[in-house]
């Protein structure tokens, strides 16, 4: 079990270095086990350095950088053992549009083998989807599901089109 775990860490690390570089367009990241401790007990330490910046602790990264680092790590785990489907709930909320575009490119790549269900308020993410469902509460407190096209989104999520136009 110890050997399996350290091998997994190595595979995740390799993925993490690559996924991070792709989502951050550069920079570098690493994960390693706490030294001098049994691998089955050791802390997993994360290092992340966006392009052009100096290595700082994870806490000093911005909200959006932390979210994207976390997404990179989740994708790295996923690549070791892909799950058949993946449900994401508003993970794009702290990201600026340029980061959302890179995130969506990666999702599109993985979507050949994994089915993605993405809950979002962001128009870019909606545009990237193959299928769009709207959840409404015409009767207060009672949820219903409708199929929507991108053009009727603003009736489902009021003002989303005008508001962000």
């Amino acid at each position: 079990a110890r050997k399996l775990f350290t091998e997994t860490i190595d595979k995740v690390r390799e993925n993490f270095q690559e996924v991070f570089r792709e989502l951050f367009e550069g920079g570098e990241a690493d994960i390693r086990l706490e030294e001098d401790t049994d691998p089955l007990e050791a802390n997993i330490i994360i290092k992340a350095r966006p392009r052009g910046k100096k290595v700082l602790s994870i806490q000093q990264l911005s909200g959006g950088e932390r979210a994207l680092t976390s997404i990179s790590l989740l994708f790295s785990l996923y690549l070791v053992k892909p799950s058949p489907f993946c449900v994401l709930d508003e993970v794009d909320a702290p990201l600026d549009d340029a980061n959302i575009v890179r995130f969506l490119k990666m999702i599109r790549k993985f979507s050949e083998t994994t089915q993605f269900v993405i809950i979002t308020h962001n128009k870019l993410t909606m545009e990237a989807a193959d299928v769009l469902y709207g959840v409404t509460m015409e009767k207060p407190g009672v949820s219903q599901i409708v199929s929507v096209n991108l053009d009727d989104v603003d009736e489902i999520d009021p003002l989303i089109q005008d508001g962000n136009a």
Partner: protein
Amino acid sequence: MHLSKLQLLGFKSFPEKTNLVFKRGITSIVGPNGCGKTNLLDAIRWVLGESRMSVLRGSRLEEIIFAGTRDFKPLGMAEVSLTFDNHDQTVPSGYNEINITRRLFRSGDSEFLINRTPCRLKDITDMFLDTGLGPSAYSVIEQSMVDVLLSDKTEDRRYLFEEAA
């Protein structure tokens, strides 16, 4: 393996029988605040075996069942069914289609079914071991996971790595 259909009846804000058909690729779910999107995610977790109320955003299991609104009476049961296309035998069960159902009654009684055959909760969770689809695996991701993954307390992080191993 991929999701083909989610069905809810009496689950949280879905008192009426509701179907959600999933295609391959990327599905996006949109709608205003409070309309029921995250409740769909809760339903998927719950039917896959999640029972921790902290994860399902309640304090008593009974809160899973439609509690009624100003205009609708509360219901006595919550039921969620999730259907998978299993042609690639990701779950080596011999079935091409796997339908899992979970019910909870106000009395506290629960029912579990695989392809309409009554079973125990354990049979459902065992079926999905090794597919990356256990309720606590990284196939359901919400925004709060960002801080969990990057926090100094690294037990949650370790847990995900162990799932990937």
